[in-house]
């Protein structure tokens, strides 16, 4: 069974933020919500590396486990989606998520956060595929159109890979062999350890 995965190749990521704005553009994500972000470690010193991170669509998704209203669901190929109609904006998924993926459109007194928003692997939500309602709440459903996540498809250096985990791993393995470096499948251990 194919399993959708993200992989950010730190040797290629240059923190150009193309993935970030591509996502904003494709899904009309509002100001203040960033489904994807790029983080640079050891900024400005030798060893500096940047990583693009979003929801990793974990196998045993912590967000799904802690959601009080059980609004998450997982597709057959491992994409973790959620139903905004159920979400109450409690913030628990944000507490639980190792990658800081859940985002809230608001952050106000008395716990007002609005409906949680996160990366959908460009697979929309429970509404009809490609419907206005789905776009309004979750953004485009590229997967239903036979396309892969826009962040990876528009990655300036093809650092960010998204797709069938086996194909992603094949490409990455080739690069590792070519570079003769050690693999650093960043985040995979946390997100997909059980099935990788």
């Amino acid at each position: 069974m194919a399993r959708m995965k993200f992989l950010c190749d730190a040797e290629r990521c240059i923190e150009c933020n193309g993935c970030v704005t591509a996502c904003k553009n494709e899904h009309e994500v509002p100001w203040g919500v960033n489904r994807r972000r790029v983080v640079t470690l050891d900024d400005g010193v030798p060893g500096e590396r940047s990583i693009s991170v979003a929801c990793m669509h974990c196998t045993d998704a912590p967000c799904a486990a802690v959601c009080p209203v059980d609004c998450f669901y997982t597709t057959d190929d491992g994409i973790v989606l959620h139903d905004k109609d159920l979400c109450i904006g409690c913030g628990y998924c944000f507490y639980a998520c190792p990658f800081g993926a859940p985002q809230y459109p608001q952050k106000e007194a008395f716990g007002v956060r609005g409906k949680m928003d996160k990366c959908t692997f460009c697979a929309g939500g429970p509404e009809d595929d490609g419907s206005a309602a789905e776009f309004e709440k979750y953004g485009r459903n590229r997967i239903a159109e036979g396309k892969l996540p826009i962040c990876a498809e528009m990655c300036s250096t093809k650092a960010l890979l998204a797709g069938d985990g086996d194909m992603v791993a094949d490409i990455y393995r080739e690069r590792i062999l070519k570079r003769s470096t050690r693999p650093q499948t960043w985040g995979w251990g946390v997100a997909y350890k059980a099935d990788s």
Partner: protein
Amino acid sequence: MKLTKKRDLSPDGTASPLKGILGSAIDRRTFLRRTGLAVGGGAVAGAIQPVMMRRAEAVEAKAAGDVEVRKSVCTHCSVGCGVVAEVQNGVWVRQAPDFDSPLNMGGHCAKGASVREHGHGERRLKHPMKLTGGKWKQITWDEAIAEIGDKVLNIRERSGPDSVYWLGSAKFSNEQAYLFRKFAGLWGTNNVDHQARICHSTTVAGVANTWGYGAMTNSYNDMHNSKAMFFIGSNAAEAHPVAMQHILRGKENGAKMIVVDPRFTRTAAHADQFMRIRPGSDVPLIWGMLYHIFENGWEDKEYIKQRVFGMDKIRAEVAKWTPEEVEKVTGIPGSEVKLAAQTMAENRPGTIVWCMGGTQHTIGNNNTRAYCVLQLALGNVGVSGGGANIFRGHDNVQGATDLGILSHTLPGYYGLAEGSWKHFANVWGVDFDWLKGRFDTGYIDTREGSEEGIGGLPFDNPMNSAGIPVSRWIDGVLEDSRNIDQRDNLKAMFFWGHAPNSQTRGPEMKKALETLELVVVVDPYPTHTAVLPDRQEGMYLLPAATQFETYGSVTASNRSIQWRDKLIDPLFDSLPDHTIMYKLAKKLGFADELCKNMQVNNEEPLVEDILREINRGMWTIGMTGQSPERLKLHLANKHTFNTTTLLAEGGPCDGDYYGLPWPCWGTPEMNHPGTPLLYDTSKSVADGGLNFRARFGVEYEGKNLLAEGSYSKGAEIKDGYPEFTADMLKQLGWWKDLTAEEQAAAEGKNWKTDLSGGIQRVAIAHGCAPYGNAKARAIVWTFPDPVPVHREPLYTSRRDLVEKYPTYEDRKSHYRLPTRYKSIQDQDKSVEYPLILTSGRLVEYEGGGEETRSNAWLAELQQEMFAEINPVDANNAGIKDGQWIWLEGAEGARVKVHAMVTERVGRGVVFMPFHFGGWYDGKDLIDKYPEGAAPYVRGEAANTAFTYGYDSVTQMQETKATLCKISAA
């Protein structure tokens, strides 16, 4: 059983008053809604609330119209990334990755991935505006053109045509760029320029004078083949992110990557070796590397003998740069320099990449020539994987440079001599004497002391004198008119796609903007120009369409020319630049001459016809074979091109190189495939091969300048040869190869002026390059420093080096203006201003940043202007990360910015990004923007604090090495 109330998607909910303003030509509901909603999100940058900017109903109404796919090219840098737009009912609803483009293969950086915002333009300048009593007032196009035209004609009458400055743009398409230069010529002035002056003018001058053409020799894609990559003053990861795709592929193929920069940049993070250089000491580093190369005999002796002139003089200079001296001047340890030299020597072919870190210096031309010499010594030029990969900045700065929006050239780098003007009078179909009469013929430069060198020749007619460059327009306004080589000061400025925050000396610029009689901004955005001066009257803002709202061709940095579709109609009241040019020319009385060879539809000159005229005149750089038809064919068949060689493999473009990179010799019918690598002798000229250009005569000081034993594959002349002329064809016995018509046209002409293209065709048929076959020259005897030498920046903190490496003497006239060097360097500012100030790019913004700072998707990522300060300097100044500081430049101009305390910059160096504007002297000028047109993010313009300093050949401004001090605000 959904809980959230579905939002009413009916169109009736839109604000009706706006409908009338926008007209009903296309359905802009989406824009309207976003425009209205964006008000809340556009508050003060730092305080932008996480307002739910509601999603456009891009997917609404599936039945409303078919989605059309149109293709364009990103407008934000020179890589030339393909943009695929999905357009529905005239609304740009979606952006798709352009997997077919061999340049980006679908990839985009932050800017490219968000260009769809331009199709909505919430913060755009929406209507022509006029400043009345200090307030912006909306006027019609007709009123604007009439008022501006009258004023300009009045100035012409009083002060002559040279008092009106036409500042063009690298954002123009090729056709608009060409038309703009033609426009200025027909108006009668050389006071025309654009961004290339302040980005790569020193490259163009330095490189063209070394081997013929001042352009990137190879391509981004060709870097897959490199074995070594040397970046100096280039931060590709932020300035050319998609280029990194090719660079990192090269690295994965085994190339060694060296980065030289004062900052540890995102590019440096991927390098095998990083050298932190003291700003402004490029020449010593290169000579320091050559020291080891010569010492160890690593140079390519055969190559130098056959193809390089003057290397012996370089050797003499290099010998002075011992490792100790290099370390003393550059701050880089000797072992590091040696390692870099060894890496470059042992890994050939290697390429060199430089950008503004190398060019923006008073000795920028020395730097660029030194880089070339390094590559020549290693035999790296003219081979795949080698070359000088000079990454240009704007999307069409290469094209705009090629098409001559420069005060010292005509299109195609034809100079300002009478012959060049005659050539273009011929191409344009106008009478030369009429053309000459358009200039300020009454003004003759009779003053003594006019100096030689580019831009300083004595002249009889201002037609032949290089105009004031963009870097110096301020002085054109403020300098005593007796010191300027033209009748009067500048009285009117057209900022036609140019933001002034990209130029130095903020306080003087503000004063100049307030002194001018007329300021006209033609731009999709109001820009920093609209808000900087405290004016009451005499200022107009004209909304120009973006390149996504018109069509035409654009030249990428690798000289590939790509065709852009028109994606959507111009938004709001905006018009394409060439339409505005036509309107204005009509008012000024030369529209017929301007568009003599062009069909004009509803005041819009036909873009294809402009390109055909370009094809008819641009023989020098071979921009003659790229007809609109061929470019459109390439656009439709992008996927057939190889992503490393850029060669079409099969399909309708079989055998062509992508975008027909110039020179694409001869007429379109000749079907030349374009030249992917300049000076590559391993291919025949007909297949895109070349040799160095014979541009500087056949001999110098009795020594042969022509190539010796080196020639491109298949050449019938198996040695060097001069450039082709009609006479030369006759001597060679090749005259008969011309057709009768060609003979008639070619008689008395040369390869540059023969409009039939016959001379080029025949030369190439015999395997020869039309421009001759010569050596590259390591020394440029026409420049102030024939051998590139080191000179300390005007404002240097290393006073101990000033005596040994002094700057130039002051010059009385350079590009019509007195230019100071020594008198500035003599003042010691290093005690009061102890820190070195440098500048550069951020990946999210481009240039003056107006359009990118007005793009919410980008603006959100960089909300504050900042200065990078080393922790040591911050601690010494008592500054903490994130706090407000005053940064004061060595001439006293100060900017209020946030401190970013970081190890990126070395000790003693402060860095600022130059994309911000809309603030001055610590104050946000938001109230001075026309309503709804202020960018989301505003900040102090870094260049406000930068100081005087101009390149000795091109007047490039010095923005990479000056002095400053910082204090807590």
